[in-house]
């Protein structure tokens, strides 16, 4: 399979990365080289093979549904680029 500039632009939109037309154009051959290379997996017979979901067999543990953390609002907000009134602040979403 291969990708064209429109598809790369769509992927960039899905990934929320702003890209100029020049950046898109540069990525098209790079991504195609990588996609062409990983395409060799299609020659492996995986009929009846289950996809790997856990590299080391183990059960997901459950813990008691209890509060174990919290009451640290200021510490959580300390690294925010913009925090107001005890919340993360973002650009206006609703006009």
């Amino acid at each position, binding site marked *: 399979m291969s990708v064209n500039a429109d598809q790369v632009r769509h992927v960039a939109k899905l990934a929320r990365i702003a890209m100029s037309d020049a950046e898109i154009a540069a990525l098209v051959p790079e991504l195609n080289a990588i996609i062409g290379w990983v395409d060799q*997996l299609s020659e492996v017979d995986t009929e009846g093979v289950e996809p790997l979901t856990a590299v080391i067999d183990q059960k997901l543990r459950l813990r008691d549904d209890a509060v174990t953390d919290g009451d640290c609002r200021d510490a959580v907000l300390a690294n925010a680029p913009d925090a107001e009134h005890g919340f993360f602040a973002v650009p206006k979403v609703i006009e």
Partner: protein
Amino acid sequence: MSLTSKTVAELRDGMSGGEFSAREVAEAFNAAVAGARALNAFTVETPEDALAAADAADASRGKGGSLAGIPLGIKDLFATSGVATTAGSNILKGFEPPYESTVSGNLRRAGAGMLGKLNMDEFAMGSSNETSAFGPVISPWKRNDGGNAALTPGGSSGGSAAAVAAGIVPGATGTDTGGSIRQPAAFTGISGIKPTYGRCSRWGIVSFASSLDQAGAMARTVRDCAILLEAMCGFDPKDSTSLDLPVPKWEAGLSSDLKGKRVGIPKEYRIDGVPAEINALWERGIEWLKDAGAEIVDISLPHTKYALPTYYIIAPAEASSNLARYDGVRYGLREIGEAGQGTALDGMYAATRAAGFGAEVKRRIMIGTYVLSAGFYDAYFNKAQKVRTLIKRDFAQAFEQCDVILTPTAPSAAFGIGEKMSDPLAMYLNDVFAVPASLAGLPAMSVPGGLDGLGLPLGLHVIGRELDEQGVLNAALAIEERAGFTHRAEKWW
């Protein structure tokens, strides 16, 4: 013998024996760090932290933990409370976590101090340290050809490798997703081990590819790796894939007597384009292990050639999902962007990520987003997970015939800064021998074997059964004792 040329074990024993104080050790390494800035190995230096731990160790009079007064370098992927943690990325510049990663916290509880945070490829994505937002780490090693080319220490744990090789830290933490401990260890003539997936908690380690990421130890000797790894590992309820198992006494269990052990040599690891010197070192490694009493058996890992393409689907897919968190809202960089591209919020996300991520990280997020997108998920991601099952099965079948596997660590010695940056695929091939063990979650280690014709270190790679770090360490110890690798980079920095 200067304090900075001692191993972790020698420092520990010297402090407990009263030969020198922890404060003297910390001061010596702080000075070495400050004198080696030309290597660009550190993103932050924390000399006060090392001194504070040293004073606590001296005050405890031998009653501190197993690493009392040992100053270490910490890869910048580990969250360190109140100390900048950037993962080598502009998008996290200025981030000071209010918490400590479990692994670095375990080291602190054992009494270790921190000399600083070590430079690395951005988000651990790279094999040469050149993708770091702080600029590349320079290897302490030079070729002996009379040229003065700056070489890469490998990556992504390149700062860790360069610092240990230069003797400015006695040991360091690394992380390994597809070879990021083992390849730089090989490039710089040091030892490095990644344990079984789940031995080290991932909590507080900046995520790259969660099903592969595993912390490990880098140091000058196999014994030091055992000492550090023992302190790093342990069950952590905060990581859902943490193994609820006791940590073995790996240092006490060290033995280079390999009688009764079988060492597998996988024929698929003989690949085109690998320098003859590397295959010759592999042959010497086989002889060393025979000399240690091991039996050599030929094995087959039939899906080896598919490991790298499998990795370059799974790792970017997981990365694209993990790195979605960098959105300019909760921490790190924020860019507002231009109006007219959706809502102001959407514009901020896209502008922040465009400004904050470097080219390789963007490339991998793009690949990952593509292979997970509608219509391609089955053809790429699901297919890769099926091949991963086959790769894991290959190892399980091979370990019916052998106890450990011996291969070269990397397909080349260290290369020059800038030599491979223009070709992402050529860079990815650095990890051709390291990635299969990562995909199978197995413990694996690089140990120095010798120098190539240009005077650069080459490593040998031991892969073990799940949970058999001891077998890996012991085979590596047998190699270390026979290789007699005492070479050090000549000081130019």
